[in-house]
């Protein structure tokens, strides 16, 4: 084994009922290296990591570590003892414990805990990493971003040699991402090998040294970052040569109907109990617009208020010029408004229910309690959208929770499209999903708009919004601070509006 090589995985196989999740995958990691693991959802990234961390037992292949030789990893504890630490995409800490308890839980050498020392240690680590949390604070009271950082701090503190970051940045804003990258570079200089899983291409090119690409459970290849331009990377991930990202600009997404100027939805002085200032908003038929702003600026809260997801305190809303009242989601749905929520896991999917039930749910609720669809009807609906959105699932009966993130998102999208809404709100539909699906969703939005559907699109990735939206509402500190359209729709203009450079 190479001197600098700290991890070597050879010919890893993993089979799930009906699926070969990994087939003979090789992966290696050097000391002081940040190595991106890339691939679409379902490519096998998560499975490979779970094999490495002992969550899954592999069906074939070998894992070797520097200083340990060939190892058998049967549990996350084994992995931890061998110096492999993981921070997962979904936060796996205990929200009802304090920050310090979360950092030290399960690591106590003895049965007695020196609370004072533990809290002091935790505070020291937190401040060294510049994480805005106190040791004695309850974890649930921190923002998701801070919780994520606490998870990283926990992993970092465990003297790891191999640190796995599985989508750590999907809930962080730009500054927090920068802070994390600083931390990663710091660890790199100390000789830690980092496996970085992300969907953000920019981030890969900003911080990584090497890229390993997987597709359909197989290794595509390992590349030096400088040898692999972006377009190439996307092509390798998708398995075809194409420049999808530039493909979708412009030509689609314009609605040419006679009623193109009709206001579909109008809101005046709308305010919910989620702590946003009253705001005005409107959208025309076939228009795609969006709310932008930093994480926590109130963009989600605005669309939640429109949909009645939070309690509406005041304001008036009109649908096609007619005054309506929305006090609960069902009211909005009855008026042809659909809402794909930001938090897919907690607000979107009904995990244990089948893909079919998840798809028909909204339309079924709208149809009425006493009018259930026949089995044949439900199957037809499900089949139609599984096909239309290319949802990868074993069958319509598969529980939705066993699908990959991107496919789960497509199921929820299918649910709302089945309702044939006039106005579709998509809150972070592309978060945490693979590039292929991202592009699919953006294309779909423009296609729907060209057919006359009004869409509000929210994304943390500004270029995504620039590609799809014809008008952006900019938010700062829970207030609407500007509206951009036409030639103003540039990255710089958005930044300056967010920063308050306008006026």
């Amino acid at each position, binding site marked *: 084994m190479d001197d600098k090589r700290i991890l070597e995985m050879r010919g890893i196989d993993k089979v799930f009922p009906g699926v070969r999740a990994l087939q003979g995958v090789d992966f290696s990691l050097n000391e002081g290296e940040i190595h991106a693991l890339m691939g679409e959802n379902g490519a096998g990234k998560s499975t490979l990591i779970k094999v490495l961390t002992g969550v899954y037992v592999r069906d074939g292949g070998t894992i070797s570590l520097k200083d340990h030789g060939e190892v058998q990893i049967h549990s996350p504890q084994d992995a931890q003892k061998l110096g492999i630490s993981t921070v997962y995409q979904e936060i796996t800490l205990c929200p009802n414990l304090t920050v310090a308890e979360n950092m030290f839980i399960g690591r106590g050498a003895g049965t007695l805990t020196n609370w004072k020392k533990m809290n002091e240690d935790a505070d020291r680590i937190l401040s060294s990493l510049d994480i805005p949390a106190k040791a004695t604070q309850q974890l649930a009271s921190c923002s998701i971003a801070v919780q994520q950082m606490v998870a990283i701090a926990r992993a970092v503190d465990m003297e790891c040699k191999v640190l796995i970051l599985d989508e750590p940045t999907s809930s962080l804003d730009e500054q927090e991402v920068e802070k994390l990258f600083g931390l990663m570079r710091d660890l790199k200089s100390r000789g830690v090998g980092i496996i970085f899983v992300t969907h953000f291409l920019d981030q890969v090119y900003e911080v990584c040294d090497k890229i390993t690409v997987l597709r359909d459970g197989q290794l595509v290849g390992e590349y030096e970052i400088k040898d692999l331009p972006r377009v190439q990377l996307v092509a390798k991930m998708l398995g075809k040569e194409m420049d999808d990202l530039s493909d979708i600009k412009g030509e689609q997404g314009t609605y040419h109907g006679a009623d193109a100027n009709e206001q579909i939805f109008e809101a005046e002085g709308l305010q919910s109990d989620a702590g946003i200032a009253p705001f005005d908003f409107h959208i025309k038929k076939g228009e795609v617009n969006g709310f932008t702003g930093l994480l926590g600026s109130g963009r989600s809260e605005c669309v939640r208020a429109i949909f009645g997801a939070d309690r509406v305190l005041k304001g008036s809303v009109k649908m096609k010029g007619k005054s309506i009242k929305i006090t609960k989601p069902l009211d909005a*749905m009855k008026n042809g408004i659909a809402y794909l*929520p930001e938090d897919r896991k907690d607000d979107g999917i*009904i995990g*244990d229910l089948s893909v079919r039930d998840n798809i028909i*749910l909204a339309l079924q609720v709208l149809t009425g309690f*006493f009018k259930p669809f026949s089995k044949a009807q439900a199957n037809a609906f499900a089949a139609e959208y599984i096909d239309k959105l290319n949802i990868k699932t074993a069958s319509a009966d598969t529980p939705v929770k066993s699908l990959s993130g991107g496919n789960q998102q497509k199921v929820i999208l299918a649910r709302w499209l089945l309702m044939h809404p006039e106005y579709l709100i998509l809150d972070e539909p592309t978060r945490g999903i693979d590039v292929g699906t991202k592009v699919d969703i953006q294309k779909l939005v423009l296609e729907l708009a060209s057919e006359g559907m009004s869409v509000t699109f929210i994304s943390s990735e500004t270029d995504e919004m620039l590609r799809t939206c014809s008008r952006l509402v900019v938010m700062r500190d829970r207030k609407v601070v500007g509206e951009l359209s036409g030639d103003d729709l540039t990255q710089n203009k958005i930044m300056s509006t967010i920063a308050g450079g306008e006026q």
Partner: protein
Amino acid sequence: MSKKKSGGLGKLKGFVGNQLFIPFIAIVILAVVNLVHDPAFFKVVLGLNNAGYPVLSGSLITILDYGSELAILAIGMTLVTAASGGQDISVGATIAIAGSAMLRVLCGGNTRPDTIQAPIIVAFIVACIVGMLCGMFNGMLVAYFKIQPMIATLILFTAGRSIAAWINNNELPIVPDPKFAYFGGFIPGMPVPTTVFIAAACIIVIALVLKFTNLGLYTQAVGINGSSSRLNGINPTFIKFLSFVILGLCVAVAALIKVSRLSTINYSVIAKDIEMDAILAVALGGNALSGGKFNMWASILGAYIIQFLTTTLYKFNVKSDALAAYKAVVVIILVVFSAPVVRDYISRMAKRFAPAAKKEAA
């Protein structure tokens, strides 16, 4: 040949994963044990009762008869479990309340009336209203005040029997009309116990409700992910509340049977510990007690299995105060077998034996 065999094994493996697997295995085990011990267990005979009417009797009839209340309660308990992720432990106490209300109406506050003071149907409707009120109380605490179901229902569990006694001034009235005894016994000329018909009616009603409404979908959605259900236009609070009200109705029907069996009531012991059996029925059916997905038929089957077990234990002359201990053993086995670790192990073993069987066949 080899193909055929592996196909069978594949089916078997599929069945191991099926929710009805555990209840089915339980029935097989109980049936075999009884068959070996005394084949007469399965004998059903047509005889005359003391009123001179033909009636069927035998252990199997006893199971169907005494399992009725439990099967009815299991219907409501399954819905409550699915929607709220918790259980109602006040079922026995609310049976006492509903039963007491029924007697109060029938006897008009008189301990030993010569005739009933109101038609039986009126008394039953009153019991249904009282049962649903109790359900509303529990449902309100759980759905609107977000109290954990076990804690919320602990209130009626503790106070229910005293309330039941208070309704009849602590008296133990006896219903004079022999017709009232039909519900827990036999209708003259009908050899099958009335309870079997009542249970069948309840099962048919719930089957129709599940088929012609979205109760099942809504309940499961709310139990799995309340916040998501809300964003899909479902009112999770109301669905939870509704599940408790439905259970209240089941309680009233069970109370009718219980009170009718002896035409009287004993507040402190009527339907004692039945809540545990009802919860056990849901669990035996392979339903997660943490809520979400449910299989109504498995729960109902579970209820009859519990009665099967009870009847078997009586048959073996097991001390009746030790019954609870045997049920506890069943719970342990059940919990262990439904644990993912054990299920994985079983399917791994099945896999290991499958190739061996193939080879043999070849």
